[in-house]
């Protein structure tokens, strides 16, 4: 892979809160990889019933797409994007 091309990709920071479960981190990381993003930094704190995970990642695809895929995970409680992009008007019904 061309390192210059890699560094040129947009970078984002996502803060994810997940319920405690054995495969939580694997689930999260797999979605990130499959949806076309690379993790450059990750930290996790474990509390009684949840995990707080901070991801710094990069990728050429829209970050909103990754965010919505992560939010679909049953054990994900919240995903917060520090660098918010533009999004479609959406009416939840």
């Amino acid at each position, binding site marked *: 892979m061309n390192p210059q091309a890699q560094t040129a990709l947009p970078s984002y920071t996502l803060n994810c809160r997940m319920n405690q*479960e*054995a*495969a939580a981190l*694997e*689930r999260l990381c*797999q979605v990130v990889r*499959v949806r076309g993003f690379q993790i450059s930094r990750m930290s996790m704190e474990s509390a009684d019933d949840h995990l707080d995970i901070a991801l710094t990642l990069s990728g050429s695809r*829209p970050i*909103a*797409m990754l965010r*919505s*895929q992560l*939010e*679909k*995970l*049953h*054990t994900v409680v919240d995903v917060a994007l520090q660098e918010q992009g533009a*999004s*479609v*008007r*959406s*009416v*939840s*019904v």
Partner: protein
Amino acid sequence: MNGAQHILEAFHRHNINTVFGYPGGCIMPLYDALVDDVGVEHVLCRHEQACALAADGFARASGEIGVCIATSGPGATNLITGVANAYMDSIPMLVITGQVPSGLIGTDAFQETDILGMTLGIVKHSYLVDDAEALPGIMEEAITLAQSGRPGPVWIDIPKDIQLTEIEAPAATTCAQPDPHYPDISEALAMLYSAKRPLLYSGGGVSLARAEDSFRAFANASALPGVVTLKGIGNPGKNHPHSLGMLGMHGSRAANKAVDECDLLFVVGARLDDRATGKLDGFAPNARMIHIDADAAEINKLRPADLALRGDLNRILPAFTEALKAKPLAIADWQKQCRTWHTTGGFQAADNEEALAPITGPAFIRQLSRIAPDDTVIACDVGQHQMWVAQHYEFDHPRHHLTSGGLGTMGFGLPAAIGAQFANRRGTVINVTGDGSFMMNAQELATIRRYNLPLKLIILDNQCLGMVRQQQELFYNNRESHINLDDNPDFVAMARAFDIPALHIERTDQIRRGIETILAYDGPMLLHVAISREENVWPIVKPGASNRDMIDENRRTTTKEYVA
């Protein structure tokens, strides 16, 4: 009650009375509990992949959750293709596997695999039960989750010791239902009323939401010209005056033309899959888009929506229906144009009238469509025959058309038909398959015989992997590579070896008698249909190309040239 008995208790609570499975070491406590249970019918398939695909077919045909069971290790890994198939098509499924005892997990024990880790990407959710007391709650949550929102497979991996543990507190979790409220559709309505050439684009999400009736009412009230995806076939019903049929790679010229020319796409329960859209840059280039779906992650995934409505189709569509009944759309010219395209560019292939002529796939499927009862369930496999069914069989309901849309799983059809037959015990169920697909789960002939299912099997046999051969011919300079199956077994003799009567036909004048014979037979029967090796599915769009660049049987490649 022990853990295994709690699993069955959850089945009873949710009216799950048919499951498909295969026993083995680490799932034996559950099978032991089944001995004393009269409320759950366990269907023994002959391969775990078939268990998963039969559960899938059961779910598609019934609208209920499908359940499959297997042991650890190879039992679990054999399920994977079937579960991936359900995941790609959003089929509600509960997967139960045994796991090695808790203390042996991570020791490379006999028949141990990390099935939870292996399957993360093909499940809606999954559990490895590490606390027996949690099992009742997990069962309840899993069954609810598999069927809620956008459905999908949920996998529960249960160590053998947990199945044997006596559980004191069975308190099941009751999952909260969302509060019903009604959508604000005013902006979407304004877009509809201002459009000159609006087009309805619907997919499998309509059936997944059990919204067929709401959709049919909406299609009638709006009178929108409509195209369907492969999984949307059957909506809004047979002979709908504004239906243009399937779009996409093997869609009709009329459907792809309408998408190309429309100025508003009204997308309902569809994910804009690449087989349907072709190259996205050239897809509906002049259209704004309203996207209605249960899954927020589908909105903007592949094409930005100008307006998105996310939620239950059974609440959203009726709101449109009422508004459009009060004030219909004024799109008569566009409707007329689409009907003209449908007349000249639909799937009206002429039937071959020559009695002694070889049978063609389309001619056979069109006769089957005319002869089979209206409520017949057709379970396809994957390949050319699958596309001929999609193009030429007239379905009146999407649950009558079982097809592996997302994963394209060869071997799907036979076990899926078995599942559908258990969902419709007295109904007519036909597996339409090819010679390549049939051999991928042919062992399930034994399951048909064991349960004396009145299934009908039709093999369109071209003695090759026809769809691959077609693409090698068209896109790889006719360099055939490993598609030859002319050493197939004698399928008639093979069926008879399973005590299933069979019939062979090869001429056009034999089609009607062949179909009528198998349909009239009181029991399972196989019809072997010899077709030409050289036959192709037309039209076709080269993978990755725009739907504008359809190729027809004369190798012409520009839609605009031949759809006036």
